[in-house]
């Protein structure tokens, strides 16, 4: 990206860029992306999960990758997002976001390398303390964002209240001179160089389909569904549970040492013991990491034509070579047709594995139906244009062959239009598309006039986001 000579200013109007050291913040269910506008990847990627330890001496909060993966007594892992894809716990959300920004972007100014968050994490109990110190110093400073305008992303269905809350936090708590809210769908489209299109974002907690026209979300068409990364994880868990014999899922932190075993044999490992073990939520979160690994390396989506359950498709799938996977405790297996079942539910509600806790997903929540519903809500004249620019983004779209299947399903839905899927190859661009789009937008000179300034905020109040960030 940065091919410019660092010693000369870019020619005027060269790329319409005019960087004002703005910060772009893209909070998601699984991770928070933050970085300076104009850069090509977010400098700071923090988990959205945070640790909470309730002890006699009071509550302690842990933020950041290093802190929350360390097993500590009574450690609970929580997430500030609500089940509907809207921020629920605003106080913690603000803290986690602030941590994401200050730990890597602005906070390092203080300059003590032992405490700036970059070097902690090796000693087990040193973490929390370091964090605490960090937070304190931040609080002692004036306000963390006094220097930088802030561009934040939001889901397409964000209610007014949440939007107002966001600008309040940015203006009041962080003291940012200028603020803007933009929908992730629009930004993901920008990241692919499109101003119009349909953006399919399969994240962790939610899948959303957003029609965008000339950089504006068509609100009626925005669709969301809970069938996303977490759903796939749950499907994998169910698959493990329902398989004969049950497949054990042991996270890394429980394993002290392991010895290799043959495929399908019980693990031979030495496990760790804890006096006061971390809570179930911690274990669940750690299991989730293993499952993400499993998703990355084993899960495959039936690429079409037809569904996995159609005709002889399952037979064909059975005949493809399997993929091996080894659990942290050494248990390993080659996964055959089972690996196709884990994510089939995204496309075919009937194929989803179910039990008491995991009811059958709704038909209208499957990806093809979401796309159909979104297109249905768009003016008939614009539909072909949008279908020509279908941008695929979100971490869970990295599932192997998801693009192929999506392509098949959309072409089956709309056989008479020219449908084009735009799925950036690089993993970073897929996962961080919304942030990258924000980075592009906030570094444009023509964007300067769109910022909501502090003055305007003070004049009109928080409701100004509704008028300005359409």
């Amino acid at each position, binding site marked *: 990206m940065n091919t410019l000579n660092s010693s000369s200013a870019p020619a005027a109007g060269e790329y319409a860029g*005019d960087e004002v050291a703005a910060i772009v913040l893209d909070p998601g269910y699984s991770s928070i992306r933050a970085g300076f506008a104009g850069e090509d990847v977010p400098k700071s990627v923090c988990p959205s999960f945070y640790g909470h330890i309730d002890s006699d001496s009071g509550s302690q909060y842990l933020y950041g990758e290093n802190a929350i993966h360390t097993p500590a007594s009574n450690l609970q892992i929580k997430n500030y997002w609500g089940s509907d894809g809207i921020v629920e716990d605003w106080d913690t959300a603000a803290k986690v976001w602030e941590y994401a920004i200050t730990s890597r972007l602005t906070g390092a100014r203080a300059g003590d390398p032992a405490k700036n968050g970059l070097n902690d994490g090796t000693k087990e109990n040193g973490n929390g303390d370091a964090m605490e110190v960090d937070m304190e110093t931040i609080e002692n400073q004036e306000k963390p964002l006094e220097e930088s305008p802030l561009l934040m992303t939001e889901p397409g269905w964000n209610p007014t209240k949440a939007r107002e809350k966001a600008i309040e936090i940015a203006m009041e708590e962080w003291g940012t001179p200028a603020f803007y809210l933009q929908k992730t769908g629009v930004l993901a489209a920008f990241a692919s160089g499109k101003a119009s299109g349909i953006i399919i974002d399969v994240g962790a907690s939610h899948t959303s389909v957003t029609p965008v026209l000339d950089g504006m979300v068509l609100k009626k068409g925005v669709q969301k569904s809970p069938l996303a990364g977490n759903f796939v994880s749950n499907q994998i868990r169910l698959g493990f549970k329902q398989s004969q014999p049950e497949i054990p899922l042991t996270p890394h932190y429980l394993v002290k040492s392991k010895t290799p075993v043959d495929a399908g044999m019980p693990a031979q490992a030495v496990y760790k013991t804890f006096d006061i073990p971390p809570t179930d939520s911690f274990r669940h979160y750690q299991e989730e990491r293993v499952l993400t690994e499993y998703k990355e390396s084993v899960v495959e989506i039936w690429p079409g034509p037809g569904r996995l359950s159609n005709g002889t498709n399952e037979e064909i799938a059975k005949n493809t070579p399997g993929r091996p996977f080894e659990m942290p405790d050494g248990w390993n297996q080659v996964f055959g047709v089972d690996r196709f079942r884990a994510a089939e539910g995204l496309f075919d509600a009937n194929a989803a594995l179910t039990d008491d806790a995991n009811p059958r997903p709704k038909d209208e929540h499957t990806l093809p139906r979401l796309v159909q519903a979104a297109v249905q809500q768009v003016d008939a*004249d614009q539909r072909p244009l949008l279908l020509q620019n279908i941008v695929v983004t979100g971490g869970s779209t990295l599932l192997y062959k998801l693009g192929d299947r999506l392509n098949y399903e959309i072409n089956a839905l709309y056989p008479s239009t020219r449908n084009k899927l735009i799925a950036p190859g690089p993993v970073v661009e897929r996962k961080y598309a919304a942030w990258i789009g924000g980075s592009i937008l906030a570094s444009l000179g023509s964007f300067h006039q769109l*910022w909501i300034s502090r003055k305007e905020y003070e004049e009109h109040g928080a409701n100004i986001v509704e008028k300005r960030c359409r």
Partner: protein
Amino acid sequence: MASGRDVRDMLGLPMGGDGQKSAVQKRAKAAAPVRRIQGVAREVAALYGERPPPVAVYEEKKAYRAKRQNQGPAKKWVQQPFVNEARGDGLVLKHWRRKPTTAPPVQDGEDTLMKDGESAEPHVEKSTDFLKYSIQVDLPTFTDEEYDAYLRSDDWSREETDYLFEVVKDYSYRWAVIWDRYDYQPGSRSHLTQETDNADAGRAMAALPFAPTKQRTVEDLKARFYHISAKLMKLRIPEMQMDAEQYTLYETLSKFNPELEGNRKLLAAALMNRSMDEVKEEEFLLAELQRINMAANRLDAEREELRARLEHPSANQQVSAGLASFTSSQALQALFSQLFAQDRSKKRASGGGTGPSRISLNTNDLIQTPSSANAQLSAAARRQSMATNQSAQTPMRTLSPQQEHRYNVSTHDRLTSGVTFGSDKLLKMRQAKSNVQTQKIAAALAELGVSEVIPLPTSKVADVFEQLIGKVGKLLDVRKVREKEEGESRVLAQMKERRGSSGALGGESGGTSVEPQGKHEIPDSAEQTPGLDGEGDEDNDNDEDGDGDGDGDAEGEEDDEDAEGEEDSRVPSETVSRAASTAHKRSASVLSQGSVQSSKRARK
């Protein structure tokens, strides 16, 4: 690569003994006694092996890196505060800029930068670079009086109209977005004040991801807006004074028909929502249609080709370019190669042709006559242009034919590589695409008394032989056509007989009855063509034509031996004489065939 020394260093181990180190060095020296070749990449040098080539094949050149221009101390950059002129609130942002050299010196160090921010006084740049992107849309405006006088509507309140205009402005005429966001709450004066009035209701609405469907369609919104725009436009500029552009705009605005638009969109949506089967079917039908069209075209081309061939090309050439153009061997060769190419393309076309095309030959033949005359003209033009092209390409220095002969100079359009025997060439010429054709050619040659082996296959002989073969090929073609036509005419004759015997219908139209008869005559004449002499042929023709025409109209009879031009003018005149003229034309061409053959004989 890290050496052992580096690793030791990193790990804090004591350095290895001196002896060991020197041993390493020594080994390295012993292993690398070869002189490094300079100026050659290491990889390339490695290819030389042990011994470098005796001659240095490289150019040793010293390359200097461009010297870094020292332009004094590093230039300073500052975070320059600026205001964007497009903003009304004077928001000060900062971007990195070269520190202006003229500005009063500021102290160095980070502190200054910090201070710059805090006490935003120093000098705030006015940024106008991006003003050009700040575009406002033009919107018609109206006063209260105007509204009351002209723009009232039963369906639209003044408030909603105002709201509509506001939304149109906000979303810059993007109707799809306007419709998407259109959310008029009656009772609130505008969407700007709406939040204060019934903020909660507004928010609840906005909070819903699926807003309830609006009563107003895009067409309703457009209709209202266009209607008002048109009226206002007329008020501002009377219709008479509008210039063309304004008037077309006015027209489109005032003629907007929401129902029509709505129906169009419904159709568009229906088109998009077709099922896979329907799309497949359409695709199939389109492909079928294309196939049929292509077959028809091919058939036409084939027919025309045939007609063009049946016209005597030499007559045309004589008319257009004169005999002189064929005195040189080059021109003759060009003519031949052109004929040959035609022949080949014809063969290819007929090779690709399928059964049905043959069957429908008859009707096509009747219908296509006028256009084939055209085609024939254009074919003549093509020939002419080819001939002129040929002469244009000849080299500057030309030898007279005598000289060429003397020096045995020959010119070729394209030379094949390698050496060939003249006899091979002759042999090859006897071969046709198909075995049957080859045999037929052989039979024809035998009939002409051309021996299998030609003793002296010089290039001249080859040329003549080639021409001969070409003609034989053509004759065979003609025979084939004749057989085809014969068959057709037989069928038609039978039909006619049947019709005649079946009832009064047969005798009813003299015009139609001409067709089969006229047709019937030609094959007879053609039948005799190969065997007979030129003269006899001609006579025969005349007689038979006369018979044929006698049934219909006698017009064609007199111009029997005439050039085509006259016939061309006559053909479109009436369809009744079509058959007759067809017959006539064919006889003329047959005549030319005969004459060609006679000349060939003479040459022999």
